């Protein structure tokens, strides 16, 4: 059994996966993780016609843990009332129909950025009204902890293959070319507006409040960022570097204007570059190099020093 923490690439893959899946797809993903971890002890549940699922989206027999899944699209926590209502309804159904087997009740969610405080209050309310049942949440960290207990081959099945150090050392120019051509052809870009040329603050990574796994991605990407600059310099279209930079500056400003967290912005930019779902390792390396290049050239994220106000 593997107990090493997930490396930064798997953390990114898990975060992106949780933001992408919703509803039944999220329940299916969680059930797959639990099934891989607990084998037949975990019972995958689905509704059977009119009989429904009785508020149970998965059950761990050995300890009587009942799971209710809430998968919001893109981790959208905007529908607080719906979330609180669902917690109450799912638990009520489970208590009515499954009280004999239910010793614990856990709400599993994909809200990567965190739960609204109303959910904490609701769970506390349920806890106080139902002595003898243990309550809890399972979120990104809980799902990650379960995945880290799986064999590395199984983790790769769940989250897709990840680029190795060897892949990073042998970045494929053709992959970078395909990536950039895909970006340029997919978006109508007018005359690029040139960004200001400023010195990169040495602690720009820290100052932008990016989580550690994104730190590591940028740092690893820096090894190949030089080749991205070289690619732009040798491209037959002299303005390709300016076009790409302008595109990403606009996209970053657009995301920032939506008051998204640095983490959410980075998720979005990464998917914009690499694509959605399982990304081949060669493409991951090219995407990381491109984002690191743009980060270093101050086209994305703020040129802050740690401790400075935005």
């Amino acid at each position, binding site marked *: 059994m593997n107990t090493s923490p997930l490396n930064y690439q798997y953390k990114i893959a898990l975060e992106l996966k949780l933001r992408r899946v919703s509803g039944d797809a999220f329940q299916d993903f969680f059930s797959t993780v639990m099934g891989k971890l607990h084998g037949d002890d975990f019972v995958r549940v689905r509704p059977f016609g009119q009989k429904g699922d009785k508020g149970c989206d998965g059950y761990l027999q050995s300890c009587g843990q009942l799971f209710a899944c809430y998968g919001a699209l893109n981790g959208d926590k905007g529908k607080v009332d719906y979330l609180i209502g669902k917690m109450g309804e799912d638990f009520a159904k489970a208590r009515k129909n499954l009280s004999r087997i239910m010793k614990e009740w856990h709400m599993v969610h994909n809200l990567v950025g965190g739960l609204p405080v109303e959910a904490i209050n609701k769970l506390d309310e349920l806890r106080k009204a139902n002595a003898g049942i243990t309550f809890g949440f399972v979120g990104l960290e809980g799902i990650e902890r379960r995945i880290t207990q799986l064999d590395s081959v199984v983790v790769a099945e769940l989250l897709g293959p990840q680029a190795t150090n060897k892949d990073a050392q042998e970045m494929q120019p053709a992959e970078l070319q395909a990536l950039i051509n895909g970006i340029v052809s997919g978006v109508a870009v007018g005359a690029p507006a*040139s*960004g*200001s*040329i400023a010195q990169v603050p040495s602690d720009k990574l820290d100052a932008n409040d990016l989580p550690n796994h994104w730190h590591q991605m940028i740092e690893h990407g820096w090894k190949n960022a030089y080749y991205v*600059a070289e690619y*732009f*310099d*040798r491209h*037959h*279209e*002299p*303005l390709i*570097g*300016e076009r*790409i*930079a302008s595109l990403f500056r606009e996209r970053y400003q657009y995301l920032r204007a939506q008051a998204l967290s640095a983490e959410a912005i980075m998720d979005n930019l990464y998917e914009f570059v690499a694509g959605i779902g399982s990304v081949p390792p060669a493409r991951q390396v090219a995407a990381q190099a491109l984002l690191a290049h743009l980060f270093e*050239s*101050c*086209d994305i994220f703020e040129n802050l020093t740690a401790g400075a106000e935005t």
Partner: protein
Amino acid sequence: MILPAKHLKQDRALLGVGSEILAALTGEYTVSELWEAVQQRRPQAVSPLSFDWFVLALSFLYAIDAVGLEKGILTKRGES
């Protein structure tokens, strides 16, 4: 595109290419002759220069009256 920028090196900006063209324009040249002369002078190590970018730089030089074009022959302006 005229001036160098964050992702546009000096040897690719129109101003930079324009300076190369002026350095190569040592007499009277047709456009094709000047294109060949600029390519020969351009070091291998620098970024590639396409013909349309060369023409754009030449147009820029013409617009600022740095070169003249008469009956298909280019000359440098401002030299007697």
